[in-house]
């Protein structure tokens, strides 16, 4: 089963911003992330006959795009997905408290949280990209949310948009 050009184009048009947000964590800027998104989708188009359909198309393209981003960063480096979000946020200075709360999460939980709420991925896509079950994804997300909320302050203060720390 190959992916069609139309399917990949639709994915690009509907999820461009999610890809860019997600890949900015690797490239360090949204401008560079745009370039990597395009490179990732270009590779996906060129390799679309290799898509076997054993997972979501979005997850397959994500894996290609992540590889493109890491190729740009350092072709010779060994890497793991957990290592790429060390800063918590692409631009930590814009919300240092949130960045710190994300950094405090265990690496895998931080990655899952990021893919869910910054890259807008489905549970199925996250499971496919990370090589874990959807149940583990759900558990990681719940634990990550609870930890971030606790780090930022009590839920009522969050509701008002005011932190207590």
């Amino acid at each position, binding site marked *: 089963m190959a992916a069609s050009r139309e399917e990949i*184009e639709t994915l*690009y*048009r509907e999820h*461009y*911003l999610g890809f*860019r*947000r997600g890949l900015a964590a690797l490239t360090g800027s*949204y401008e*560079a992330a*745009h*370039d990597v998104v*395009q*490179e990732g*989708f*270009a*590779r996906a*188009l*060129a390799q679309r006959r290799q898509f076997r359909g054993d997972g979501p198309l979005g997850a397959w393209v994500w894996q290609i795009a992540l590889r493109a981003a890491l*190729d*740009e*960063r*350092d*072709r*010779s480096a060994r890497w793991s997905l957990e290592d790429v979000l060390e800063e918590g*946020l692409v*631009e930590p200075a*814009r*919300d240092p408290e*949130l960045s710190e709360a994300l950094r405090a999460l265990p690496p895998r939980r931080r990655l899952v949280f990021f893919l*869910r*709420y*910054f890259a*807008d*991925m489905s549970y199925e896509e996250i499971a496919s990209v990370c090589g874990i079950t959807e149940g583990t994804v759900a558990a990681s*997300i719940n634990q990550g*949310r609870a930890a*971030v*909320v606790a780090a*930022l302050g009590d*839920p009522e*203060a*969050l*509701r*008002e*948009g*005011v932190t207590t720390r």
Partner: protein
Amino acid sequence: MTHLRLIRGGSRPNLAELEPGLRDRILALDEPAGREDWADVLGRSRSLRPWASPLRLFALLAAAAAIVVGAGVSSGLRSGDGSSVLAVSRVAPEFDLGSEAAVGGIASSTPVTLSMQLTAGSHALYVSKKKGGGFCYEWADEAHGCLLRAAPLGVAWSNDRVVGTVSARQVSSVEVRFTDGTMVEPSISWVARPISTGFFSYAIPPGKTVAFVIATDHGLSRGRVPWYSV
């Protein structure tokens, strides 16, 4: 309210799971909507599959043959002919700018994976890929710098020379326009991925005054830099 509308409209559905305060903080980080040029993706994809076109395959084979022949004929580093695609050779494991270079600090502080020396006209160009991403370059005895990625057009000036870089992905040629209405296209030394940058260094003829430099991609303007006041 704007954020809630976005979520309900489906653009960030996952955020609806979050507590309102946390959701708003994440939404506040959103950058302005960027461009999403699918045509560029298609162009890149075609370049990744040169065998898809018999013409491209022929061109690829011809280029490979030319490189093999060139390597056999010339073991030197300097071609000196000013051609736009120049001899490339690994010259050192370090980004060696030479002991006389005023920018030696770059050499000692910049980890690199590859250094090479090109020649454009009578001027040597040193280019090095940095391990941490990006690259450094130096035109011998002229401009130098380190970039994470080339902008469509970057220009540095002196009274008698204009030096610059262009993104190989976005630019195909450079024009130097003079105040008298004339123009020239300086030769560009192209360096392939991952540097993906074209370098040019043009000596301004005596009596000429530059109005601006413009980078184009097959006729479409990609960047324009006016001559600075001196």
